[in-house]
């Protein structure tokens, strides 16, 4: 294991624990503002979608021109299959199979 990475992981654990324990210590018995709750919801979705986008299309800050079309196509196909079957798992498998097949054909 890489020592720097382990340190970062421990730091992540501490940061996450803070966000979990802070309401217990700072605001017991008080409700969380609805507007802020909503903002955090938007923020978390935005972050995850950004990561999906970046991890699919970038490699070391470089746009992967060759692979991008097939990954985009597989992503759209996965979403369509998930919507049709009402199953995220089936959608994921369909997209993975498609992206694999396209990478082998290329």
């Amino acid at each position, binding site marked *: 294991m890489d020592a720097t990475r382990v340190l970062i992981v421990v730091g992540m654990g501490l940061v996450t624990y803070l966000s*979990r324990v802070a309401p217990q210590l700072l605001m017991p018995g008080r409700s969380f503002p609805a507007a802020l709750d909503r*903002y955090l919801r938007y923020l*978390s979705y935005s972050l995850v979608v950004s990561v999906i986008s970046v991890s699919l299309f970038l490699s070391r800050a470089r746009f992967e021109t060759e692979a991008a079309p097939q990954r985009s196509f597989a992503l759209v196909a996965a979403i369509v299959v998930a919507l049709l079957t009402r199953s*995220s798992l089936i959608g994921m498998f369909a997209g993975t199979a498609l992206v694999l097949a396209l990478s082998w054909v290329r």
Partner: protein
Amino acid sequence: MRILLVSQMYPGPEDPDLGIFVANLERELAARGHEIARAVIDRRHGGRLRHFELLRDARRSARRFRPDVVYAHFLVPAGLAAALATRAPLVVTAHGQDVRNVGSIPGVRAATRYVIRRSAAIVAVSQWLRRSLEEAVPDAIGRIEVVDCGVDLERFAPRDAADARSQLGFDGNGTSFLCLGALSERKNVLRLARAFERRGEGSLTFVGDGPLREALEGRPGIHLAGRVPHEAVPVWIAFTTSSFALGVAAKAHGLHWGEITLMSALVYAGPAQFAVLEALGAGKPGLQILFATLLLNLRFLPMSATLAPYFRWAKGMRLFLAAHLVSPSSFILTHLHVQKEKSSPDSPVQAEILNEEGKYLDYYFGVSTTCFVVWVAGTAFGYWAALAVPPAFNEGLRFVLPGYFACIFALEIREWFLRLVCLISLFVAVPTAVLSPEWGWLVTSLVVATCIWGVERWMQRAS
């Protein structure tokens, strides 16, 4: 349309799993705009006398409600009670045991024949049951529609099976089998147990309860999880795939097995773990990773605040653990459980509930501990499975987790503002990440979320 629902099986405070399919059916009918009244039995105990109570309730409800249609789930006694209660058109569903009772219980054949003749429409939940009913009561020939009870695909969408495995105490050795249902002769659970024993490996867990419980207890490899609230089952079944996919993705990003397992144990937050995989694998600055983790996990603030009253009974290590185990699954299940108990007509007054919240803490620990164990074990198992994948499949491994999250979002997001947040983030994150590899996507997310939130607030105020 005004529909009177009559059933001798319906979930109640003592028996939350009783006839859950009838409650689901009622919910769907109500969602389509129908007005529903019900005359139901919501407990297992009470003997045959309950059936007379059902008839009495059905008559009262019919007088008060004046239904356009009366719908009975089960031929006898529900169908009979519905037929005798009102002259409204009767729709009746044959479910299984009600057909088997014809010929085996004196008087049921005649009662069933009367219900069939009185019905405007007859439904059987399978082709096999349609044939059985036609054989038992020839008056039904040609009049039966087959409509199965269906499955709630949103509730039972595959999610984290690892969650389910840990909550049920699977140890991960060999094949794990799960049987959901009553422990009764009719469900053939003893034969299943014998077949499992002949196999000689793995584990078999029964989720449910019934008269054969004692006969199943103490057998090697067989676990009895008991009866569980219906709403917890899909979470158990679903918690596997995300943690497994995370393990697979960690391997694809070049992380060590110990690193990702440690991360699952210490961070225990799927989206944040997923978000930093690429950055961690590429050796990006620690500060950026910690900042992203903080932003993503701020969502725990409102969850933790909501759960805070139940943690008042936790001290020392229990409080430490209670805080660490907060997750969307444990939060939702506990919150729903408490709300359900508080809204029950038999529930004590609010003040008494507040004095009992220690018991909700126990419930929370039961749900959250098992979720946690499954999450960590599932991640490790996913990584281990990815090791066996040849390099030619790396492109697929890389797609697994983004694809999975994208599918989950596509299925779950119904709000237009949230859809807008996701769409804009999807298209803007890449160019900004090219411009600034370290901070581009983070700043993008902050700006997009803030702008859409601001627009929404502004529109709310304007309206």
